[in-house]
């Protein structure tokens, strides 16, 4: 048992050291933007709280196991009958309640914080990028710039980026660990993820949610550039890259692995994303037939979307 205790305390110490002490290289704890930073701080805070719980339990455990083993008691020792103790039991109910309450406050605050545009960036107009997945690649459409990329995405530093996520197949999860936590991309609705990169650099992004055979290869590069470099890159793509035709896009969707691509137009025009009137699960895939059938319960879901321009260019207006 002694060996085991030693082992446990070694494991425990090494975890605390690795996670909090030496500002490690672990991606999640090496944030490059405010969202990931909030999350890394939350994680470190929770580790410290939990370390306290573990220390208490492990100390009690070691005391009980060393003090009350049969080999240390006399043969005729009869353990007493003890029902319990109201105050002790209340104590170890109350203390966890307090710990959970503290963690809850932190969780609720940070959960709201990471859903919103990060603090300090609210005044800026976010850059909207539609990130859609298909088996097994990522398409990035820049409606304002009118360009589209595959399997890489360039963003300017110190500007909020609003990723609008959806999928052309299985549920995927858009994740750039060093910039912030992940969110699902699904076929029938848009999910939004706000990220900001504060440092220039190249960050690995990936699909985190299992989506079939090519899942392991579904990675992309996020290149965070200075605003100047970013504008230059956009202009480059506009001038040099070919237009994305509907036919080309359909070929892309059908091809398993395509490598990196750049285009000087987006697919949003001929293949609108599932938002507004196109949101699938609210009223079926074929919204026209639903409307014609005049189903009442569907109508109330549509009202706020009525009159919305369905052409791709309208999506620009969501930016502000």
């Amino acid at each position, binding site marked *: 048992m002694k060996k085991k205790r030693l082992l446990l305390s070694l494991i425990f110490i090494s975890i605390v050291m690795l996670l909090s002490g030496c500002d490690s290289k672990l991606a999640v704890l090496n944030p490059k933007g405010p969202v990931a930073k909030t999350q890394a701080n939350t*994680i470190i805070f929770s*580790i410290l709280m*939990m370390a306290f719980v573990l220390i208490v339990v492990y100390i009690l455990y070691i005391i009980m196991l060393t003090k*009350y083993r049969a080999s240390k008691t006399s043969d005729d020792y009869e353990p007493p009958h003890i*029902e*319990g103790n109201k105050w002790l039991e209340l104590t170890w109910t109350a203390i966890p309640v307090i710990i959970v309450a503290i963690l809850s406050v*932190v969780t609720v605050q940070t*959960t*709201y914080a990471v859903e919103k545009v990060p603090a300090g960036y609210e005044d800026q107009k976010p850059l909207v990028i539609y990130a859609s997945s298909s088996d097994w690649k990522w398409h990035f459409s820049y409606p304002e710039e009118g360009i589209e990329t595959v399997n890489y995405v360039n963003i300017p530093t110190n500007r909020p980026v609003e990723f609008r996520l959806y999928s052309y*197949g299985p549920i995927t999860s858009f994740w750039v660990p060093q910039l912030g936590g992940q969110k699902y991309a699904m076929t029938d609705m848009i999910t939004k993820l706000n990220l900001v990169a504060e440092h220039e650099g190249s960050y690995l992004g990936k699909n985190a949610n299992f989506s079939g055979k090519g899942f392991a290869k579904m990675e992309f590069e996020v290149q965070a550039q200075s605003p100047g470099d970013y504008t230059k890159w956009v202009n480059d793509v506009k001038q040099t890259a070919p237009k994305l035709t509907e036919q080309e896009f359909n070929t892309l969707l059908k091809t398993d692995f395509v490598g990196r691509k750049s285009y000087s137009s987006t697919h949003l025009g001929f293949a609108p994303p599932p938002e507004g009137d196109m949101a699938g699960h609210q009223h079926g895939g074929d919204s026209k037939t639903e409307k014609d059938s005049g189903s009442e319960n569907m109508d109330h879901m549509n009202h706020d979307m009525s009159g919305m321009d369905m052409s791709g260019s309208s999506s620009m207006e969501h930016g502000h």
Partner: protein
Amino acid sequence: MKWDEFFVTGEPMIYGADISIVLVSLAIIIGLTYFKKWGYLWREWLTTVDHKRIGVMYIISALLMLFRGGVDALLMRTQLATPDSKFLDAQHYNEIFTTHGVVMILFMAMPFIIGMMNVVVPLQIGARDVAFPRLNAVSFWLFFSGAMLFNLSFVIGGSPDAGWSAYFPLASNEFSPTVGMNYYSLALQISGIGTLLTGVNFIVTILKMRAPGMKLMRMPMFTWSVLITNVIILFAFPVLTVALALMMFDRLFGTQFFTMANGGMDMLWANLFWVWGHPEVYIVVLPAFGIFSDVISTFSKRNLYGYKSMVVSMVAISFLSFLVWAHHFYTMGTGAMVNSFFSITTMAIAVPTGVKIFNWLFTLRKGKISFTSPMLYAMAFIPIFTFGGVTGVMLAMASADYQYHNTMFLVAHFHYVLIPGTVFGVVAGMHYWFPKMFGFRLNERLAKWAFWLIVVGFNTAFMPLFFLGLDGMTRRTYTYSAATGYGPLNMVATIGAFVCAIGFVVLCYNFYYSFRHSPRDENGDPWDARTLEWSTPSPVPAYNFAKMPIVNSQDAFWYSKKQKVPLYEDGPYEEIHMPSNSGQPVILGIIMFFLGFFLVFSWFIPAIIAGIGVVIMLAVRSFERDHGYHISAKEIAATEQKLRGDTV
């Protein structure tokens, strides 16, 4: 359908499996014929309605499935040991992690737990069997046919490959065109019905069949945990039944509940799955808590500390278990408000769980602790499970979960709760109640070897995964490049997995060794234990208790030993009414197997015939007049004399 689509082909491993399945089946058939054991097998086991034998069959099935799921695990770990490994291809890896998850949860943990319930609960409450012995046999055979159907997918038709959570639209015909996911929906459905029936059976058994004087608050803690678990089963499993039925309609009949078009809603599947799936993890862990409570109390020679708060905390856990399912998909974009709600309910579970941990620690206090093999598992459980539990609290925090979700951190967490919780629990229970089942103890020296290999191997295998997860390694990924730097920690994890596997081999070898060499148990109470099951002789006679025990307190057997007061009613033996054996449950199981198999391949004519067969079986049972049989007082007296000597 062509034959080469029907049989899985092209993989040496599969041909190996084909050959070994044929050889093992032949060996069993030839062996049974040679030793003239067919009659014995049919009379004593296949048709039995005795809860103890059904329990043993559950446990044997669980051990077989542990082997299957364990081999899956080793294949996965071998593939991940080195970067860019070519050991398995993506499709094969996807099938293996899917079957590993399904097999370990539904066909290993569940039958192991239910097997323990079967063997122990009637004995702990002083009952002669469960409330519905025939139904109990039906439960087992439905589980067994579901498990066999699921395993058949490996060689016929192809294994499921969409993960054990089978998220749509990945699990729809469009993205999983093989019959693999049909196997998933049908095999889980058949065994799930069996589990639901078990739930009904044990609730009635515990509520209605306790010995005189055993009030609810005098029940052993394992029985309490089983009662609460079965209430959870009763509420959770119907959700799975419905979800799987809808899935089957989607895949076989072209409905659109979860598909991408025509109003299908993939998120609905995720919700239904986890409304069942989260309570499910408490279904497999609460009985283990019960086992640990009994084991810790027995081997520290003390009554359980804080009995009432133990019960209250389990009730609280069972209630909360239904309020936390959305924490499995915080990242679905339901918004900060919903996520905050589920974060708080999830963290709240830590409170009753913490109460239990402290109560176990204080049961040790002032005790007289002996480190037998069951106790070792219980003592490893406390620190390791606490570690797994606190990482669970970390995962519960939605904002941080966006970074843990779908990563190796999550994989590490749930193995850190399920293995020390469930697996150590059932293994501790198996060592503890082994003499009750078979009349001899497992060899302690081998058991301790197995224990240390398993504990050291387990920690080596899963501790690195926490760090890999924080470094961005996703789960279910079949390979990674050397540039990621994930290689060394993965190698460590793989080595740990193999050490752990060696531990399980030693554990199984111990069955054989102890069968050959262990001294036979003489008085039925080898551990000097506290609860009623130890007052019966080992092996336990079919009727369990010749006379009804009288219960005046918790741990009634302990106090009757200490205070030298009789445990049983006075008076002569009376004849005992027993349920008779029946071949109907096993036949029903076989028909259900074929019904499922035909539906998997959409062979509807044979499926309809099998379906009619099921209806006929139910009708036969309804019109059958079977009043059981009686064991005469004389026969009981002779049996008791033989088993107990002259003492009673």
